[in-house]
């Protein structure tokens, strides 16, 4: 089970990204944030949908760190998303309703859970690892389902209070504050993620993904690196979960479902894994398609998404970002394989 050579080529070219000086092409990096800010001013009535998109982008980005960059094959990432959501909700109800504090607590809880479970399971690989991640998510689900006194069981956790952000910005009825709050959190995590994947640590994970034996042979502490990335990714997923708990004031069991783990992987690959912005495109398109097609029938979007997935895997490795890259490359008159925006 080797990874696709096409994408590894991009990684070979990527290290230059960290050290190059300013070029006009770098302005593209402002695009997603500019779109989000424009949306904030013109998107009246759609801010909660927008917040949902931001949350899912963050969640997909967290999966990109573990699955895309570190090559940790997981179908249980919802465990950390749900853990973060429940931690934020429970903390707000029983201890303190400050959103930033709640967010930090949820992030820490999810990160700690990621650290512990990662230490247990990251000795294994392949299908066994996949099953172990599935089992962890299933265990979390069962715990949340049966600890009714704490989590509300299958009724969900409700009654979450949120005080103003920094005591200044109240969460309004239209979700404008929640949108900006989520955008700020996403931005911080994006900067961290971009920094991490370009650091020597991130590079070593590239190597581990491509050839674990060789990395071990040259003395890389493979297991620790994987555990560290997994924990970071879990913390990030926990932040996403906390954001959804705080913006919707509700946490349901569905945050821990297998379907949620699957959907976030779908978003990531739809956009293109291992390029950070893939999560942005994938999550945005997924949530919008789900919202529009889902209002007709929830099963139509399933059909569309499922069909899209099959097509992408068979014909467009690299996802939508890969398609954009090859179109850009064609326009520039280069051959497709040599470009690939290093993000």
């Amino acid at each position, binding site marked *: *089970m*080797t*990874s*696709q050579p096409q994408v590894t080529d991009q990684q070979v070219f990527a290290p230059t990204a960290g050290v190059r000086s300013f070029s006009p092409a770098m302005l593209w990096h402002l695009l997603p944030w500019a779109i989000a800010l424009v949306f904030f001013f013109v998107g009246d009535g759609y801010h909660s949908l927008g917040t949902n998109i931001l949350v899912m982008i963050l969640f997909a980005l967290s999966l990109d760190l573990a*699955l895309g960059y570190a090559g940790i*094959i997981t*179908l249980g990432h919802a465990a950390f998303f749900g853990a973060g959501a429940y931690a934020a909700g429970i903390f707000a109800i029983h201890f303190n309703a400050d959103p930033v504090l709640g967010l930090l607590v949820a992030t820490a809880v999810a990160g700690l859970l990621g650290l512990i479970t990662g230490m*247990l*399971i990251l*000795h*294994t690989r*392949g*299908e*066994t690892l*996949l*099953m*172990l991640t*599935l*089992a*962890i998510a*299933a*265990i979390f689900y*069962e*715990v949340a*389902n*049966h600890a009714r006194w704490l989590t509300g069981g299958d009724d969900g956790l409700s009654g979450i209070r949120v005080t103003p952000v920094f005591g200044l910005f109240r969460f309004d009825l239209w979700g404008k504050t929640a949108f900006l709050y989520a955008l700020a959190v996403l931005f911080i995590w994006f900067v961290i993620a971009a920094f991490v994947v370009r650091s020597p640590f991130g590079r070593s994970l590239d190597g581990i993904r491509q050839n674990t034996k060789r990395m071990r042979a040259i003395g890389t502490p493979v297991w620790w690196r994987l555990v560290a990335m997994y924990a970071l990714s879990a913390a990030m997923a926990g932040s996403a979960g906390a954001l959804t708990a705080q913006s919707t004031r509700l946490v349901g069991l569905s945050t821990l479902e*297998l*379907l949620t783990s*699957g959907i976030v*992987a*779908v978003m990531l*690959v739809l956009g293109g*894994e291992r390029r950070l912005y893939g999560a942005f495109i994938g999550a945005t398109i997924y949530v919008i398609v789900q919202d529009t097609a889902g209002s007709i*029938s*929830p*099963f*139509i979007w*399933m*059909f569309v*998404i*499922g*069909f*899209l*997935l*099959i097509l*992408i*895997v*068979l014909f467009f*490795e690299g996802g939508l970002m890969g398609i954009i890259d090859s179109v850009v490359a064609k326009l520039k008159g280069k051959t497709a394989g040599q470009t690939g925006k290093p993000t």
Partner: protein
Amino acid sequence: MQVLTILLDGISYGMVLFIISVGLTVTMGLMRVVNLAHGAFAMIGGYIATVLVLQAGVPFLLSALLAAVAAGALGGLAELTVYRPLYRKGELPQVLLTIGLCFVVIAGLTLFVGPTPLPAIVPPSLDRMVDIGFRSYPAYRLFLIVVGALLAFIVWLIVECSLFGARLRAAVDDPQMARAVGMNVNRMFTVTFIGGCALAGFGGAIGAGVLPLEPFYALRYLVYFLIVVAVGGMGSFRGSLVAALAIGIVDTAGRYIVPQFGGFLLYVLVFGLLLWRPNGLLPPKSVA
């Protein structure tokens, strides 16, 4: 006596798991494909059989056999079109494509049949209690045990006593060597995939009383099918029977004795077992 009841319930449940999952153990062991769409073929079988019984009045067993044929045919089609390019790809593309296939099947069946759970089709001849000495017991569950045992025997005959089975085992243990000595491993893939999907379809049809058919069937029970494969050891037929029965019994016992924990017990056991023996209980030689 409660112990015996749990045992019988667990075994009949385990038999359904075995019938459905034995095909998955082949796909994952022989072809090295993470196949998350296997539950979808069981679901197709279950839906076809239920519609045949309810709408066309086809007898129960005949409709289950027709469902198996249909699921096998669709499985063969899927193997030739979407699975074949997957063999050379990594785990992530495999996971995603098969999830996509799952979504398409779920959406397709729901659009045709409707989004409500389907009633279990148990024929009147099986929908009664039989006296088994110490208590009366549902005939349907005894039927599952008998059919499961029969199918396990047939699968054993094919795998252990036929030339095809010998080749299959060789290919699971060492696919490269099997190719090198001139076996047509690709055709073997197709044939076993069809067989596995047909069994899954059959299991989905006759097991509808144990694993109720509903729109998210393909995902909801997928975890169980995957657990059977992982616990039994990928590509191991004996392992999948042992694992299916053990999981059926453990899960049933857990729900009887400590209902407040639900499926918790099973998952914790599976988690512990996979940490202890990452390749499952009875892995084939290639990975042992």
